[in-house]
């Protein structure tokens, strides 16, 4: 009975001491002892995901320009929030061995946006071919698939 009482007294005094200690700590500004409000800093860091999107691009027809040259093009908008590369590739025109030459903005088949910057601009995709060496090609429609690959590297 006596020991139970003494246990309770010890518990109560420990509780009291902890309350006093916490009050003192608050009053002293997190226990730094200078009596003023303490400042605490939290670093914020945010990594925004890289994304890109191409819009406004449609299928197009290559039509006769001069002599045996055929060409066609379409425009598209590229939006990205960082550096991306767009690469144009194509299949042969159905049932033939004709592979159109592709270019983006009339300058090679790849397009790179600038590093560390948001990009929003209109670009063009051009396809052309010279059929002068293909006299055996029958008149008619030939189709192919142009693929634009958008990648981060």
């Amino acid at each position, binding site marked *: 009975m006596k020991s139970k009482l003494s246990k309770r007294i010890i518990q109560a005094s420990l509780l009291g001491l902890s309350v006093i200690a916490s009050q003192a700590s608050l009053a002293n500004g997190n226990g730094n002892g200078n009596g003023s409000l303490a400042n605490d800093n*939290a670093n914020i860091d945010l990594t925004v995901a890289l994304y*890109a999107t*191409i819009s406004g691009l449609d299928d197009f*027809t290559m039509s006769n320009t001069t002599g045996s040259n055929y060409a066609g093009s379409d425009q598209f908008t590229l939006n990205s929030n960082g550096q991306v590369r767009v690469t144009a590739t194509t299949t042969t025109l159905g049932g033939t061995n004709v592979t159109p030459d592709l270019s983006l903005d009339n300058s090679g088949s790849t397009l*790179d946006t600038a590093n560390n910057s948001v990009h929003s601009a209109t670009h063009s995709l051009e396809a052309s071919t010279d059929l002068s060496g293909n006299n055996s090609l029958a008149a008619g429609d030939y189709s192919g698939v142009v693929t*634009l690959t*958008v990648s981060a590297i």
Partner: protein
Amino acid sequence: MDSFLNPKNTAWFCWLHQQNHVFFRSNQPHKFISKLVFVLAISFCLNPNYLAQAGEFSVAPMIIHIDGETGQRQKFEFIVHARSAGTVAIEVYTLKQIHSGHMEFFPLKKGDTGLVKWITLDTSKVKLEDNERKLVRGELKIPRRMRGSHLAAIMVTEIAPKNVRRLAVTVRYAVVINLKLAAERGRLKGSLSALKIEQREEGNYVIADFSNTSARTGEVETTVDIRDENRLLIERISLFTKAALQKGDTRSRVFPKTTVGLRGLISRPLRSGTLNLSARSRFDRNLLPRQKTEFRFEKEQSTVGLNYKLEPITIQPTSANFSKNKFVVSNPYKKMIRLSFPAGPRTGSGKFLFRPRLVTLEPGESHGIMLTQHWGNDLISTKTFRINLAIGHKWHEIKLQTILKDE
């Protein structure tokens, strides 16, 4: 100002973060509440129209960095957002660096090994309604005893109806998985080979191959000193992969077990003879042994540019055997041209000096050149100077003659 962080988008952005940080490198400390407040603040401050104006569909993120451990399973996920309704195919592709430094994507085929075989996706096709976003989940099961850096791509391709009469255009987005294994150890190893000069229509290039023989990705920086037979420095140039040049990078990235081609344009004119090439490469922080080679350069004859003519200069020396003549050079072409005049002896008889020695002219521009000659005690004679002319980057040799006034 447009923003890709509109409140709608922020919801999935933050939700993704909760789902396990695809957007955040997995080894970074998380202070989610702070980030959430920051994202929301930005989102509400900026115009929320950006993605609404965007394309048929988009994918984010386009690169996922994973710092993994061998024998571990690692989850990843990305969002496909459709502006207009459609279906996209989700497929694993292998990713290879080609000689130009560009990356090429190949569909998975039998016998492929490595990261592409460790990936499983929860779906191979996603159907989306107008302005709908869907989450695609994947998992990596990294085998034991693996090391180094590994790359693969998840190709998101729109499925469009076949067009039989026109050139059908398909857009696809590559989500690159860049896995770095914690077990990655050891020094980066690489070597430079096949160092030489190549003459092309657009100019002279120093070219070389660089091989990354280690298990992880590194970035190489190479500079080459070109010296003539007398060890005089002609030019110091930096070499890059074609891919790095196009991207405007200052270093060229080389993936494991890959050989890429490096090149650098020589802007100074070269004369036939023996040239000494000395290359120094730094692969990440490691300085590689200097590579030296002697190269016999034979200038190829080119007919382009030979129609550029400089009118003969009439000289009238003074009694002190000295003459000073001013003449004008101009650019009749549609490209920029450069004219490089020879350096004469500075002492003794037969001294001559062109000022300036190097002139760059935009189309239609003209510039005055002063030629000073001094014969000393020698007999006054006419001279033919060899001038180097660059149209674009290709150098040609043209002649400039002097004639005496009495002749």
